[in-house]
């Protein structure tokens, strides 16, 4: 009877023990056929996943935070064997279901560091090292009980097919370093329950194609430091329910083909000037002027008078004079006076005028009256002085405070940027203002650093390898190289 053992003995006799004992057996014994495992990190040690044993802690890519934005989580407790069910593929994908007491978490990690982590404290980290797309077929609801920070390093485009309803219980603060453009295809309605302030450091332009209506239910004040020009092609109506005062320091001009000024009481007064014209009719109760005759500084009337005069010092011709008997003289060459006139030597004026004397209502407007009237009182010329010394302007523009280098309160980042120019660092006005406002440390010029640590010169430094290249032998693990 022959057995398989006989063949074995025969083969040893024929082929030799060496060949018989190694044929069909892999050279590396019972190693993993692909050669990928054990990985370099697992040489000379347990083949159980290091994360499962708590030797390492797998984590996702989070990068750093941003100014004022933290992406920190509480530290993850290392896993305790055998609570962490860890799977890791050759390329580095990993799934961990960890029941380690105090460190319970679920991790799904891509080899790039992207993935999803449900952490022990219930936090969730979702990380994408490249593009992220979220598609929702139905509704989407987001409820955040705490604070939220969104930082976009690139452009953000939001398209909303329906309405965009925003309700904010607190303030809305918008700061843009660039322009803000709004295009509203239909109406724009804004209701401000309290005050509204606008500060425009440059120019402002408003263009309205149709009617522009402004309704003020209280006062309105307009202060213009420069010129104000109103050009209206059609009618202008400027109506006051009480008093309308227009004054000008130097000159006030009103001109029109037809000009009308009317009122129950009208006063047009001045020290010098002209009132009337070639075809102007004058109506009035009293015409009064300085006493004295023509050439003596008194009032002079030119033209024809129809009516009666209480007194005529000289007259070329008197058609009818009820009191001609008082005429002092008459030139002979004019002719003989008609009527009952006769020349008397004695000059005696009538004590009782034939007409009732009507005194002017007001005193004659002389320089003594006009000058104080223009300089003070309700009818005086208003002196206009808007923002004397440009104090308000400079306060708004801020340029003077910072010697023209900033036009607003700068942040520490903007200050740091500005001070990179040695000229700005030596600018006493700028530095003084920044320190005075508490925006720059008083120790800005201190050249003594608090502590000095490491130092490297231009010579290339010794570097440890940062990226594993293949499954290198363990002895290469800590090899250093010098970049050239």
């Amino acid at each position: 009877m022959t057995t398989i053992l006989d063949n074995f003995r025969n083969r040893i006799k024929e082929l030799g023990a060496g060949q018989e004992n190694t044929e069909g057996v892999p050279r590396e014994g019972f190693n993993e056929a692909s050669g990928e495992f054990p990985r370099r990190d697992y040489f000379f040690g347990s083949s159980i996943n290091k994360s499962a044993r708590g030797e390492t802690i797998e984590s996702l890519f989070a990068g750093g935070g941003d100014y004022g934005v933290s992406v920190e989580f509480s530290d993850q407790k290392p896993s305790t064997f055998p609570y962490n069910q860890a799977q890791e593929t050759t390329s580095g994908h990993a799934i961990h279901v960890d029941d380690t007491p105090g460190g319970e978490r679920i991790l799904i990690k891509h080899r790039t560091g992207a993935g999803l982590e449900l952490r022990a404290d219930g936090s969730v980290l979702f990380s994408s090292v490249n593009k992220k797309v979220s598609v929702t077929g139905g509704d989407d609801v987001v409820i955040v009980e705490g604070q939220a920070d969104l930082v976009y390093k690139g452009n953000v485009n939001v398209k909303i097919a329906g309405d965009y309803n925003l309700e904010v219980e607190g303030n809305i603060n918008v700061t843009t370093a660039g322009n803000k453009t709004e295009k509203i295809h239909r109406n724009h309605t804004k209701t401000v329950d309290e005050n509204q302030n606008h500060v425009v450091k440059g120019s402002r332009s408003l263009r309205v194609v149709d009617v522009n209506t402004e309704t003020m239910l209280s006062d309105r004040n307009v202060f213009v430091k420069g010129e104000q020009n109103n050009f209206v092609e059609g009618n202008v109506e400027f109506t006051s329910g009480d008093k309308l005062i227009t004054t000008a320091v130097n000159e006030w001009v009103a001109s029109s083909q037809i000009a009308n000024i009317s009122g129950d009481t009208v006063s047009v007064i001045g020290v010098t000037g002209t009132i009337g014209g070639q075809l102007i009719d004058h109506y009035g109760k009293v015409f009064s002027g300085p006493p004295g005759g023509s050439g003596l500084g008194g009032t002079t009337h030119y033209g024809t008078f129809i009516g009666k005069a209480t007194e005529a010092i000289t007259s070329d011709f008197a058609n009818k004079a009820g009191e001609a008997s008082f005429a002092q003289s008459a030139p002979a060459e004019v002719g003989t006076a008609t009527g009952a006139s006769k020349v008397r030597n004695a000059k005696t004026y009538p004590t009782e005028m034939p007409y009732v004397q009507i005194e002017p209502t007001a005193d004659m407007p002389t320089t003594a009256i006009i000058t104080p009237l223009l300089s003070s009182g309700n009818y005086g010329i208003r002196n206009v002085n808007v923002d004397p010394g440009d104090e308000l302007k400079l306060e708004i523009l801020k340029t003077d405070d910072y010697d023209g280098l900033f036009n607003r309160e700068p942040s520490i980042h903007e200050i740091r940027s500005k001070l990179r120019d040695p000229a700005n660092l030596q600018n006493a006005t700028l530095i003084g203002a920044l320190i005075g406002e508490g925006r720059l440390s008083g120790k800005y010029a201190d050249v003594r650093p608090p502590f000095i640590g490491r130092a490297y010169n231009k010579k290339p430094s010794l570097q440890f390898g940062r990226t594993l290249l293949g499954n290198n032998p363990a002895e290469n693990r800590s090899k250093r190289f010098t970049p050239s």
Partner: protein
Amino acid sequence: MIYLVDPVYNPNFQSDITSATPLAPGITVAKFLGSKGSRLQFEQLSGDKRLIARQLYLQAESMRTVVTNKTFEKNRLIVSEGLYKPAPSETPTKDSINDYKQTGRAVVYQLLGEDGRIDFENTFELAVYWKDFLKYQELILDYDTYDPSGELSCQIVLVMPVANENFDLNFSKSLKTTFNGSTLSLNEVVEVFVPI
């Protein structure tokens, strides 16, 4: 030396240069506009915009070295001072950092940690890494205590040579460490810190 430029991102091949012009994967011109130290719009800049884009391409290449580096996987490199437009009455001193910032030759970076604050230790590591692996004209490790609180701040200023159209560049690779605007050390990077 002729600098080999990725044709996909070569500004010379872009039809138009705008803030959305890509310079590297995930990095556009806009990255260098909205910095906290110098905010402006690309349209506000005068001068050759394609030249600016070429300068920024070199900067973007530098930024990429951080994104792909495991040492800095918990850090975020931000542009703290990008393109710079001087105030109307300001004339930057010739060859100053602000002069270079006008065209993108110089960009100031900060390295933030997960807590959103400057990571001083890794900033120094980055300066050392860049000085060895990067091509540049000048690298300045800049510290200051300008903050009114007296808190230390740290930035890396990276100055690139003028990027002409054929990218024939001369990288002199000079080093400097400054503190509060004064030179602390020439030809080396020195770590400044405040003990915890």
